[in-house]
């Protein structure tokens, strides 16, 4: 192939040469070239090796769907060379070739090809199963595709949410006319074009075609209420016209996912040209009419020297014109409409050399162009529930029934002259706009307002368009010989016949068994031929065989675009700037960033046990509960009793779901008349709020309770350690003497000059401690005051890790760490808190069954290893000695700085839960160690004397 002299139709800019490398050789193209057109213009015919047989392949469609046009560009694998625009300095190489494109060792697969028929892998590598890892390693060497470079820096992707009235999928003549028609009716339109230019098939058409395309494109670009998205694809249509649009043309993001809620969707993707099945149909030099016209008309590339053209339609006829204009010697035009046929393309490894015709003639040629019909890309319609029907007269599929909020235009709807397509497209756009108004009005009427909006009268505006006609087209799928049906998967018509014979004769089965239509083109080129060959094998019609269901995405989307930019907020406490200044090691806990430690968690533990420490526990979930019926709500949510908790009292409670599984725990304080403050686990705050609302709204709407989440309204500081009373007393007006402010009590008062602080005595760390909830604006002030005033007492901050060690020393379980989605409450050993004599509470039924016989439930126990220096990893299995029978697992484990030994919590079967039981723990190394079940959950101070002082 060579570059032609300048042509009026070309889209390349000869004034802007671009230098790049193709398989390490320097090549020059022009701005506007695709990678494929630039490589083709350099004289290359072979672009790739086929997946299974490693047959040499050249351009087939020279567009996005070209099955042979996948290349590696730098660290970017599987780039579609027929679509991606050339850039200066690109490093382009062929994929799936070794050692080189021209000399490929694996082409030997072609010689042994008869072993690689459909189902070969399934049948050959099934047995023995033990050898599969070996097979896998070998087969991975043969896997097609580019190379992923894991060291590539991450690139920016983005998401956008849009609410247009009309989305038009496809920027060809019909799509542009529809966009303009809708815009004139006042609709806000998003016009989405898969390729780099508006115009569709007009771009590679006649001068008049291109002029018409340019005029329409100008009008679309100029229209204020049309947003044109080039190089973007509507990849899916979901419920209520939720359209996923992959925008590859964003100036900053590599790819942007647009989630557009369209009131109506116009589907006008045009038609995709279909290959013809015959012997040698994958030789370099066999290409579709569209490919030849694109190469010549858009990129000024001469695709060959001597051409045979098989034509069944006007596109084929126009390809003949284009070839002649480009100086290609068209040695034979085979007209399929009058019975002409191509039997085979013969030739060497690098090119077609001879074409064998149906009439027996053999013609020397290096180029064979086929124009045998169309695939209707009904993907978006399929996704809306449409099941396309085959029309044998037009030799393609058409939609059968689409919802009212989707309209079809262009080649999917029928055939016609350019004028007819434009008239139909305009009418489609106008109708889409009117229906969009109807949808908008309906949605508005469903939204409650001070003054309600009436629903629009009547149904959706009726479809009054004059339908497009359907042209007659000969049915051409397979010649009298066998050839490739799915180029990207290397599946031939012979494979399909064989699979049908083996019983895989339903279209969905044969697809999965042979992998036909499952390659990168996803059926755009090969679905109809697959169906046609299967129909032939079954002796039926295409209509009887039916077709497979197209699934999203219409075109591939990068994982980066789907991952997007994540709109996940990060939460921090008001003290976070101080933590950062102290270089605290941050840890992400749920949505919260909090200090894991300030350098030495063991030292932090010792300081709390000996002096006094401060921890920022602001993420603790906090719910303000007000109203006369709060005790009823508490009784409903917690398993224990709450009616008699006096003002000034704090109580611990466990919440279970209705299946008896432990859901959350925490303390709730009775602050005053009809006023309580509930705390939840940090991660459970939102869940418990919704849970409380659920009971209040659905089961007990008569209860008078107001629930307000106040997690971030307070900064929560726990002051823990034997000197905590001394420290806090320096800063508060609250009487801290043990007689007036005892364990599990709450007081309100001033701390460090800050009014309205809530303070309670609880003991998660096992030490005397005061948890102070400070109005958040003053959190940092109180924290700094506590540190300043306690300097002589040895006050130091401590982080989450020290707290976790101390709570483990005390044997306090953490919901979600020591419990899981199967842990019913009797497992955690707090049966005394399950009050079955209450009339009702969440989980009561299941807990009553469980308490009747809890022998089958595992038990949470404290565990100590025989060797005090060994800390088994969390989630280590506990097994029956000498066997692999699992009896339980370690749920928490740490080295205790206080006891100077390893300590654990674990869940074990009840038979192994008795104190003193010897357990076998399997370490991650496989080594087995012994450990012992302890009498109390608490490894340290089981009587709790330290926290009650």
């Amino acid at each position, binding site marked *: 192939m060579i570059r032609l002299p300048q042509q009026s139709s070309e889209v390349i800019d000869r004034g802007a040469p671009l230098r790049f490398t193709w398989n390490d050789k320097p090549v020059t193209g022009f701005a506007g070239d695709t990678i494929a057109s630039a490589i083709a213009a350099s004289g290359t015919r072979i672009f790739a090796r086929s997946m299974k047989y490693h047959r040499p392949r050249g351009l087939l469609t020279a567009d996005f769907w070209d099955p042979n046009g996948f290349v590696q560009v730098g660290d970017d694998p599987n780039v579609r060379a027929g679509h991606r625009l050339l850039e200066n300095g690109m490093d382009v190489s062929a994929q799936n070739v070794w050692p080189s494109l021209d000399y490929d060792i694996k082409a030997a697969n072609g010689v042994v090809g008869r072993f690689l028929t459909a189902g070969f892998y399934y049948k050959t590598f099934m047995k023995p199963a033990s050898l599969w890892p070996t097979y896998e390693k070998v087969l991975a060497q043969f896997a097609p595709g580019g190379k992923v470079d894991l060291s590539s820096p991450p690139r920016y992707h983005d998401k956008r949410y849009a609410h247009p009235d009309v989305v038009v999928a496809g920027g060809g003549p019909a799509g542009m006319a529809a966009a303009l028609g809708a815009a004139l009716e006042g609709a806000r339109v998003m016009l989405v074009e898969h390729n780099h230019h508006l115009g569709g098939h007009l771009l590679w058409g006649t001068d008049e075609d291109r002029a018409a395309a340019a005029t329409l494109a100008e009008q679309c670009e100029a229209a204020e209420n049309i947003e044109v998205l080039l190089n973007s694809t509507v990849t899916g249509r979901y*419920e209520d016209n939720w359209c996923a649009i992959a925008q590859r043309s964003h100036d900053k993001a590599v790819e942007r996912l647009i989630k557009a809620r369209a009131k109506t969707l116009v589907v006008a993707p045009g038609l995709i040209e279909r290959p013809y099945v015959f012997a040698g149909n994958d030789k370099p030099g066999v290409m579709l009419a569209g490919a030849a016209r694109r190469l010549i008309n858009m990129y000024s590339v001469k695709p060959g020297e001597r051409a045979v053209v098989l034509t069944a339609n006007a596109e084929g006829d126009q390809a003949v014109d284009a070839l002649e204009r480009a100086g290609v010697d068209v040695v034979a035009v085979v007209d399929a409409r009058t019975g002409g046929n191509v039997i085979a393309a013969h030739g060497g490894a690098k090119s077609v050399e001879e074409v064998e015709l149906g009439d027996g003639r053999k013609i020397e040629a290096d180029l064979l162009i086929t124009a045998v019909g169309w695939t209707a890309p009904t993907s978006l319609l399929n996704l809306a529930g449409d099941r396309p029907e085959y029309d044998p007269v037009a030799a393609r599929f058409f939609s059968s029934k689409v919802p009212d909020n989707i309209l079809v235009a262009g080649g999917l709807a029928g055939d016609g002259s350019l004028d007819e397509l434009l008239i139909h497209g305009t009418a489609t756009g106008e109708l889409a706009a009117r229906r969009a108004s109807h949808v908008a009005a309906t949605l508005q009427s469903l*939204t*409650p307002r001070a003054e309600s909006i009436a629903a629009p009268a009547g149904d959706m505006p009726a479809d009054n368009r004059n339908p497009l006609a359907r042209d007659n087209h000969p049915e051409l799928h397979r010649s009298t010989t066998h050839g490739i049906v799915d180029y990207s998967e290397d599946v031939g018509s012979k494979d399909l016949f064989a699979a049908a014979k083996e019983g895989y004769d339903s279209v969905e089965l044969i697809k999965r068994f042979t992998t036909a239509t499952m390659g990168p083109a996803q059926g755009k080129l090969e679905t109809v031929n697959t169906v046609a060959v299967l129909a032939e094998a079954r002796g039926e019609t295409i209509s009887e065989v039916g077709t497979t269901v197209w699934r999203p995405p219409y075109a591939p989307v990068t994982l980066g675009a789907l991952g997007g930019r994540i709109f996940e907020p990060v939460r921090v406490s008001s003290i976070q700037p101080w933590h950062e200044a102290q270089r605290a090691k941050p840890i992400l806990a749920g949505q919260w960033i909090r200090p894991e430690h300030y350098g030495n968690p063991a030292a932090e533990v010792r300081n709390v046990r000996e002096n006094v420490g401060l921890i920022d526990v602001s993420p603790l979930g906090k719910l303000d509960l007000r109203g006369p019926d709060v005790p009823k709500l508490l009784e409903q949510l917690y398993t224990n009793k709450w009616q008699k908790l006096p003002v000034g009292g704090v109580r611990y409670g466990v919440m279970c779901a209705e299946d008896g599984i432990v859901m959350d725990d925490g303390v709730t304080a009775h602050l005053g008349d009809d006023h309580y403050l509930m705390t939840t686990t940090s991660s459970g705050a939102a869940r418990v709020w919704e849970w409380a609302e659920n009971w209040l709204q659905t089961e007990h709407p008569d209860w008078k309770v107001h629930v307000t989440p106040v997690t971030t309204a307070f900064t929560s500081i726990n002051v823990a350690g034997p000197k905590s009373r001394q420290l806090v007393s320096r800063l508060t007006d609250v009487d801290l003497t043990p007689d007036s402010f005892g364990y599990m009590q709450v007081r309100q008062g001033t701390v460090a000059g800050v009014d309205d602080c809530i303070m309670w005595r609880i003991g998660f760390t096992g030490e005397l401690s005061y948890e102070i909830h400070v109005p958040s604006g003053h959190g940092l002030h109180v924290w700094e005051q506590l540190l300043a005033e306690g300097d002589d007492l040895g006050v130091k901050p401590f982080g989450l890790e020290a707290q976790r060690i101390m709570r483990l020393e005390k044997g306090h379980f953490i919901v979600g760490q020591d419990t899981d989605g199967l842990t019913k409450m009797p497992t955690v050993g707090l049966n005394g808190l399950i009050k079955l004599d209450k009339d009702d509470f969440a989980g*009561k039924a299941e807990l009553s069954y469980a308490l009747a016989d809890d022998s089958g439930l595992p038990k949470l126990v404290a565990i100590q290893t025989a060797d005090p220096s060994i800390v088994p990893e969390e989630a280590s299995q506990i097994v029956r000695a000498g066997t692999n029978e699992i009896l339980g697992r370690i749920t928490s484990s740490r080295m205790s700085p206080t006891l100077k030994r390893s300590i654990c919590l674990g869940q074990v079967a009840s038979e192994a839960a008795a104190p003193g039981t010897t357990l076998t723990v399997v370490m991650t190394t496989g080594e087995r160690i012994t450990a012992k079940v302890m009498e109390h959950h608490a490894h340290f101070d089981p009587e709790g004397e330290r926290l009650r002082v």
Partner: protein
Amino acid sequence: MMLVPCPNCGPRNSSDLRYVGESHSRPNPNTATPEEWRTYLYMEDNPAGPLKETWYCRSGCRQYFTAVRNTSTNEFENHPLPGAKIGSVDPSFHYVSESKSVEGNQ
């Protein structure tokens, strides 16, 4: 993504809401047999057709409401009324479908 008509906020993306599940009445936990209770917990009617279900408008008004959705078409029948709070205004919230019998789940 389908639009769910919240009675207070209007039609919203379903991701703005939490799907609570089929609406079934809660048995009396003091008298329910394990079979009855677990039928309530775990067994779904899952019909192809109209289904009464509970939604929670978690990103909007934070109200629970029931709606009847045709599971075959995802169309909501009888759009829930604005302000119709479950349990108070809508007396049909507690309903037991006829198909949901204990015997049927053995």
